[in-house]
């Protein structure tokens, strides 16, 4: 996106100097995951041919990696607004993740194409009968024949119609791409020279951007996930996904620091309190996740209204309740206790162990939200060979995403920290007492740990 002609004038450390080889290794390894996932998906597709099982798995995997991209864009803006020290640890990875929008748009295509198909076949088979649930396109409201026979769906067809869905989806991607484009463009500009105007512009756009982000997270997840069961509604939905995506991003970023940079002397010089901040943020999101999900469940469980209770009832019966309990344990109880016990000795390796576990929990959470729509019980997953694509799709998309991400990291090769961001002063401890000439950045001290620089 941005170019770096001026790098020779500067005495800073860049991404490739520090972790270039590791990023290349990741870019080389990631396709293996994608390949394994792809094979599993193909096998699943072949074994469940004629049904939409693959698409179900694909949607839930997509929601994770899409959420990671949107979460990264949101965190990035959050950091521009608040300037917290923890943000400098993950700013570059976040920026690289926010540049993934073209890839994520491509990943969205299978879902979009199916929507177009459903516009055409209307949910009827060749002889004019309704297709069974597992053979229909993902969104039942997309079929005019079903919609017309249903009072509630007709009432909201002004919003829930395939064309509107497609237009909105494309619009969302345009907005996200636009946000991340300017976030990255101006961040590159900020790296060029000390210029508080750029900083001011970034902060201001991020403040507005956070609002846009909250609204687009809400409506995109309403469109793509909540409308899977179109009679059901919850006004907390958007926030649940804001929290979920924020959580997912945080844990993946912790993993990235751990696996790409854990043994760098540079990282060891960073004050522990910033890692503790990351730990505290993880704790906060763990609690927020529990809080929002409990609130939504409790309110619908207690009010016991027909439209809402059905959604909850299905997820607390037929064996789905065990997935739900698993969710409580893996997504809340275990991480909560772990974080509470290890808060005083937080380090990145501890956090990463938990984060790896939480990547699994995040998938389980999305699985629990999306899949019961289509399957009577969790056992159906095994009976129908859907488990192949349930495992394959996250691997496929994850492999592709990580490959793209690591390439984005190496391609930009930005300075490892935004050295002209004034707020860095509080964070970067290496030579806090030495603020010399303009060209002398705190990073000069970090040079000792590298052999070459850009």
């Amino acid at each position: 996106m941005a170019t770096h002609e001026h790098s020779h004038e500067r005495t800073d450390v860049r991404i490739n100097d520090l972790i270039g080889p590791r990023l290349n290794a990741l870019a080389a390894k990631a396709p293996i995951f994608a390949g394994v996932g792809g094979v599993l998906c193909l096998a699943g597709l072949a074994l469940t041919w004629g049904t939409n099982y693959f698409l179900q798995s694909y949607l839930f995997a997509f929601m994770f990696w899409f959420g990671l991209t949107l979460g990264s864009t949101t965190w990035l803006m959050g950091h521009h607004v608040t300037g917290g020290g923890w943000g400098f640890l993950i700013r570059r990875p976040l920026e690289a993740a926010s540049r993934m929008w073209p890839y994520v748009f491509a990943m969205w295509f299978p879902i979009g194409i199916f929507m177009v198909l459903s516009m055409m076949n209307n949910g009827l088979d060749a002889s004019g009968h309704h297709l069974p649930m597992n053979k229909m396109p993902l969104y039942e409201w997309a079929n005019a024949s079903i919609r017309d026979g249903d009072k509630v769906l007709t009432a909201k067809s002004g919003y829930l119609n395939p064309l509107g869905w497609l237009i909105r989806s494309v619009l969302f991607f345009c907005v996200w791409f636009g946000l991340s484009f300017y976030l990255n463009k101006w961040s590159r500009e900020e790296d060029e020279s000390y210029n508080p105007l750029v900083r001011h512009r970034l902060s201001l756009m991020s403040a507005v951007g956070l609002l846009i982000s909250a609204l687009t997270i809400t409506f995109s997840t309403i469109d793509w996930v909540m409308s899977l069961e179109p009679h059901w509604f919850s006004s907390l939905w958007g926030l649940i996904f804001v929290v979920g995506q924020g959580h997912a991003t945080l844990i993946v970023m912790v993993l990235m620091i751990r696996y790409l940079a854990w043994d760098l002397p540079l990282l060891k010089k960073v004050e522990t309190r910033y890692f503790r901040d990351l730990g505290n943020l993880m704790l906060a999101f763990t609690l927020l996740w529990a809080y929002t999900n409990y609130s939504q469940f409790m309110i619908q469980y207690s009010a016991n209204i027909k439209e809402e209770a059905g959604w909850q009832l299905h997820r607390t019966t037929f064996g789905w309740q065990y997935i739900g309990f698993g969710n409580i344990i893996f997504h809340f109880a275990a991480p909560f206790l772990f974080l509470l016990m290890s808060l005083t000795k937080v380090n990145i390796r501890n956090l990463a162990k938990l984060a790896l576990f939480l990547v699994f929990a995040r998938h389980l959470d999305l699985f629990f939200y999306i899949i019961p729509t289509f399957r009577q019980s969790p056992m159906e997953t095994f009976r129908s060979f859907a488990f192949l694509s349930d495992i394959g799709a996250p691997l496929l998309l994850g492999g592709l995403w990580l490959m793209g991400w690591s390439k984005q990291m190496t391609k930009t090769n930005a300075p490892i920290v935004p050295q002209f961001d004034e707020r860095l002063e509080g964070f970067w401890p290496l030579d806090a007492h030495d603020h010399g000439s303009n060209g002398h950045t705190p990073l000069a001290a970090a040079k000792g740990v590298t052999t070459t620089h850009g």
Partner: protein
Amino acid sequence: MAQHVEKSSPDIEFPIGFGINNRGADLRAAEIDRAQRKHSVWGITAEFDETDPLLNAARAARKAGYTRMDAYTPMPVEGLSDAIGYRNKQMPALMFCGGLLGCSLGYFIQWYSLGYGYALNHGGRPYHSWPNFIVITFECTILFTALTGVFGMLILNGLPTLYHPMFNLEGFERHSQDRFFLTIEARDKNFDFEKTLAFMRTMGALRVEVVEK
């Protein structure tokens, strides 16, 4: 009244002879006087106006083998417990136990009363409808944690104690304003009136004083 106001102003005058560089007749007289009152000594205290010399003094005293000492400061000073060698992790553990008690009590009372004591069918929900019990259980946990914490802290600190030997010290009222005191208590095994007094005088304190029982 005016006198009291003056007393708390920053440029307080100390009696001649209490400083470390003044080794005049006054000092000797005072020392003899103190030696006579040795049996009534509770401890020897040094007064500082900064944290760094306080921390250094505490480290030195610890190195010299003193264990029965305490500092009196106008605010919590980072690293002071380490310097003195005071280790204590009672409070988190105590509060955790309190929380656990509250948690169990809160849940138990709901489980018992709605399941057995006064079982009501509430919209067809199970008698043991645990999602409904979470909030009160949580509130009880918090309540008991807070109560154990605050009262545990007060009791373990021995508060309220309206009398303490340190209050006998002239000028001690500044411990809650802008002065830092380090006291080695007479019950310390290594406490020796003369030696300890001499030791304290090497600490660069504003003044060194004897605290009486």
